[in-house]
């Protein structure tokens, strides 16, 4: 099946690279061009005249833009990181139980989990917003993190279950004969074997939560808890003329997810395939 590199393949490969990377390259190009250079009638395809000043404006501490940027970055890290940790722990126990045990109601429960996979966020957003408002927790991290957990959990349980089911049960049985308790078996015997699963689920949840926009925009009113996904359009609205600065903000906001994909693609792919398969 694997054929050699024909001109057709090569040409198509080039198209794929252009399709995937040109939008990103273009933002990078704009972000590194001086505001004067950006006033030309037609844009230059390389940053000319070159400047890094738009990044120093975003990153050099003390300016209004950088203060807002660092706050949004911190919020993104807290929200995506928090959702990731909670989801992984909950999905680990849930996925393990669904993979290994059959108990009264387990089938119904699991089918419910699968059904909520395709429940749009929209269907639950408004009651949750009203509860959050009643509880006075709008503009805090709690609802944002919890909704990110709820949005990711069905897929996370599904992926975790399929990873556990792929492990041979003999090892746990041996430990069980030796008298290890179930929690101990999970934490000390199964968990080390599940490192790739934990990594896969963690990365997927982190990336989807990092991208979240609808929930943060519903549940926040000030910049106190607004993540980068809200910061970027706000900046665009505020600085309509300064597209270099907007491009720099966009590039910085996608830096973390892109680095995660590039460095951890192995886990990401295996996790997404488990989620998609069957």
């Amino acid at each position, binding site marked *: 099946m694997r054929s050699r590199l024909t001109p057709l393949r090569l040409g198509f490969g080039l198209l794929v690279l252009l399709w995937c990377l040109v939008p990103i390259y273009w933002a990078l190009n704009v972000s590194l061009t001086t505001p004067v250079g950006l006033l030309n009638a037609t844009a230059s395809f390389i940053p000319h005249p070159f400047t890094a000043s738009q990044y120093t404006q975003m990153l050099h501490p003390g300016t209004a833009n950088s203060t807002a940027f660092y706050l949004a970055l911190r919020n993104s890290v807290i929200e995506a990181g928090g959702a990731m940790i909670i989801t992984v*722990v909950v999905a680990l126990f*849930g996925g393990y139980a669904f993979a*290994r045990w059959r108990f009264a109601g387990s089938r119904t429960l699991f089918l419910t989990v699968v059904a909520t996979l395709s429940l749009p966020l929209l*269907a639950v957003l408004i009651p949750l917003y009203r509860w959050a408002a009643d509880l006075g927790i709008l503009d805090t991290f709690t609802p944002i993190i919890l909704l990110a957990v709820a949005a990711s959990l069905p897929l996370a349980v599904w992926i975790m279950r399929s990873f556990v089911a792929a492990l041979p049960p003999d090892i746990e049985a041996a430990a069980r004969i030796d008298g290890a308790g179930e929690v101990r078996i999970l934490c000390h015997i199964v968990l080390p074997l599940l490192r790739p699963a934990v990594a896969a689920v963690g990365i997927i949840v982190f990336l989807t939560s990092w991208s979240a926009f609808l929930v943060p925009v519903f549940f926040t009113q000030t910049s106190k808890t607004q993540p980068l996904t809200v910061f970027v359009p706000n900046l665009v609205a505020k600085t309509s003329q300064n597209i270099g600065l907007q491009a720099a903000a966009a590039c910085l906001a996608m830096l973390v997810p892109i680095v995660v994909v590039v460095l951890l693609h192995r886990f990401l792919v295996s996790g997404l395939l488990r989620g998609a398969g069957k």
Partner: protein
Amino acid sequence: MDRSVLTQSLGDPVGGDPGGDEPVGGRALLRRIGRRGLQPRFLPYLFVAATVVVLAGLSLIPLAYSISGSLHRGSLLSTDHSFIGLHNYIAVLTDPDFQTAFKNTLAYLVYTDIGVLLVGLPIALWLRGLKRRRRAVMLTIVLIPWAVPGTVNGELWSLIFKPTNGLLNSFLLKVHIIHSNIVWLEGAKALPLVSLTLIWQTVPIAALIMLAGLEYIPGEIYEQARIDGASRLRTLRRVTLPLLRPATAISLVVASISAIGIYDQIYVLTGNAQNTISIVQQTYLYAFKVLDFGYAVSAAMIGTIASVIVSLVVLKFIYREIAF
């Protein structure tokens, strides 16, 4: 997978440690012996408890409230919250603003599904033909657009579509296809171009799903097709595409659900313009501008029902069980 069977099936107790570094010994047995009585009955429930709490509290119960809310008056400007049956649905469905949003969303769905097929399928076929290492590198690059957050995605494409100085106009001017700048994000052009940003974001997942589907097709079938003298195009049409139906169906469901939920890109690219407004945006407007939660939940439920129907239709007509 009954646990007692698991325990009995233990042929040899797998000597050494299989990756864990925790020796399991007799002391553990003594310590755990009391706890073992708990396991079969209650422990599974303890393990799934958190999952159940999250799904019940944040999905199922709110969903019930949404449904109930859609059947009651929900204006924030009045204290009357009496039961009114399907009145909210009728009001929403006959509201011209909602009808526009609904039609637009349907258009997003069609464009996105077609785009995902036209771009995702060739990418999957191309990836399948690459050697292992090259494929891993290319798959990583293909996945990058998926990881770019929606609003950032919108900003990237807005820099491309900018009338002055945008990439598209600059390029077309330089190669002399156009002689003056075109305003891209207005009129009838806007919606397909916004769909393009969603296609850019969804193609990675679709390509990955279809690549996995291609891997499931046994090599012998291709061997047989070659022996029978089938051309490559014919093999693609008669073997690959039919056997890829399940993966294609799942890709389309994923693409359709994202299209029905489209919001982030529009927010950045065209705001609340009538020619691109989506159901999610209209829901937001009902909740926070019209201040009627009854309308908002009904609009949301209509979007939800549309997602479910589309998923079922796609699965029914494209997904067919395949036996090798």
